[in-house]
């Protein structure tokens, strides 16, 4: 897998991150070496192996449909930088 400058830029976009020019160059070579190593996994024969997302196999864990939470408005907003009338303010979203 070749790691191009364009790919680094695409990954910045996906992650909502902006790197400086220096960081971009460094990241490109670091990702290349890390992914070069990770690509080793391609050698492993996994034909017919069912992907395993949960190592501990328990299923059907559910809770009852009951309302137990009260109003936490104040606590939730306490960490917000900017609020108004109980709402969090953000720059205008474009419709």
């Amino acid at each position, binding site marked *: 897998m070749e790691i191009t400058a364009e790919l680094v830029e695409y990954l910045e*976009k*996906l992650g*909502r991150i902006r790197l400086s020019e220096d960081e971009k160059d460094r990241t490109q070579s670091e990702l290349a070496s890390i992914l070069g190593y990770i690509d080793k996994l391609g050698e492993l024969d996994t034909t017919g192996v069912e992907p395993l*997302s*949960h190592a501990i196999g*328990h*299923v*059907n*864990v*559910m*809770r*009852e*449909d*009951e*309302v*137990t*939470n009260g*109003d*936490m*408005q104040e*606590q*939730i*907003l306490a960490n917000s930088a*900017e609020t*108004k*009338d*109980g*709402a*969090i*303010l*953000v*720059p*205008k*979203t*474009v*419709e």
Partner: protein
Amino acid sequence: MTDYEMVIGLEVHCELSTASKIFCSCSTKFGGAPNTHVCEVCSGMPGTLPTLNRQVVEFAVKAGLALNCDITRKNKFDRKNYFYPDLPKAYQISQLYYPICRNGHVDIKTSAGMKSIGIHEIHMEEDAGKLVHDPLSGKTMVDFNRCGVPLIEIVSEPDFRSAEEVTAYLEKLRDTLQYLGVSDCKMQEGSMRADVNLSVRPRGQKEFGTRTEMKNIASLKAIARAIEYECERQIDVIEAGDKVVQETRRWDDEKEYTYAMRSKEDAQDYKYFPDPDLMPIEISEEYIEKVRSEIPELADAKRTRYVEELGLPEYDADIITGSTTLVKVFETTCEICGAPKDASNWVMTDLLKLCNDSHITPEDISFRFESLGEIIKMVNDGKINRKTGREVFARVFADNVDPAQYVEENGLAQVSDLSAIEPAIKEVLANNEKAVSEYLAGAEKNFQFLIGQSMRSLKGKADPQAVRSALQKLLDEMR
């Protein structure tokens, strides 16, 4: 000129009628001051985890069975990752790889006859929050109350060829989900929302054209208008030699046109992957049968039964089964008064008129449903007459009074006791000597006049039949 046909597929989101949210124990209640139905989980605080609500799975399975779907035995939840202020975790928990229901269909009735619309899949997911523009600050206000309200998304096959079919399908979906009690499907409150994927192609062509998507249109009528407009627009684009652009468009219902929403900076890459915080859901045959057994009689079956077994006119059956509230009122009424036709008459005339006069829909009525049956029973038993019954029902409708008590307290009970009727009639006869003597001389028409006078003197509370026979008897005695 080429003859075009439209091809439409629908994605319908319905909020489920659970008490609590899908992944936390906050209330799902509509409205409320911003961020008052919110906890650390649905506001996406660091360290919090989702806990799946059992009822959501049951509702989704129930909807799937009613829409003739296969139920997926091993379910997983996936994360759909994207950044937006109404999505506090920056991912929506949804189902991509293993949706809970697949391969269903809905039969709809249109002017051209019956048609089957395929359901591609139904999946469970969480709703996002609400963004409101604040003109004072020029910023956007974020409210998480709706975050985590459970949704099912019903994805149809691209089987629709007209706005009429779309409308019939949406009405059918709404009826079905309301009957099941899994969603109230109120489009105006956003608890049912449809995204319309539409393309056009020359009739006879196999390949689909390029489609556009119209999101969140607010009513059935607006959807029909938007479809007609968008279809014409696409045909115009093609006829002008241009190409339809695949994009999301918004329908402006006031100005009646669609416009392209600002194109997203990049094509979305949602980076779906299985949510590691939630365990798989395995659905057994027994579970499916249990849920199936709880599915109530749905609209079509009810309509047929009302006509065939209860003898209702088709029109009445259509109207009543079109509203789950009317069905409840009607069935409760039948049970109490034992007279389905009377029940249907009262619902169709009196109840709907009262709703109409007070500008509310049947869903908003607030009286005790048993009241109507009790009134009809009193009328049929001769306790009160039809006219009094109407008056009582108006009070029931307005103030939820108890009918029997109201009749009692206001002395409205019908007089059928001869001992009470006879003196009144005798007085009427004494006061109308001329009419009586004319009658006795052969003027039959005066009988009707004397009945009217007697009823008036009894203030309308008397049983007309009893008055008629008492009068006849007294006049006969005078011959």
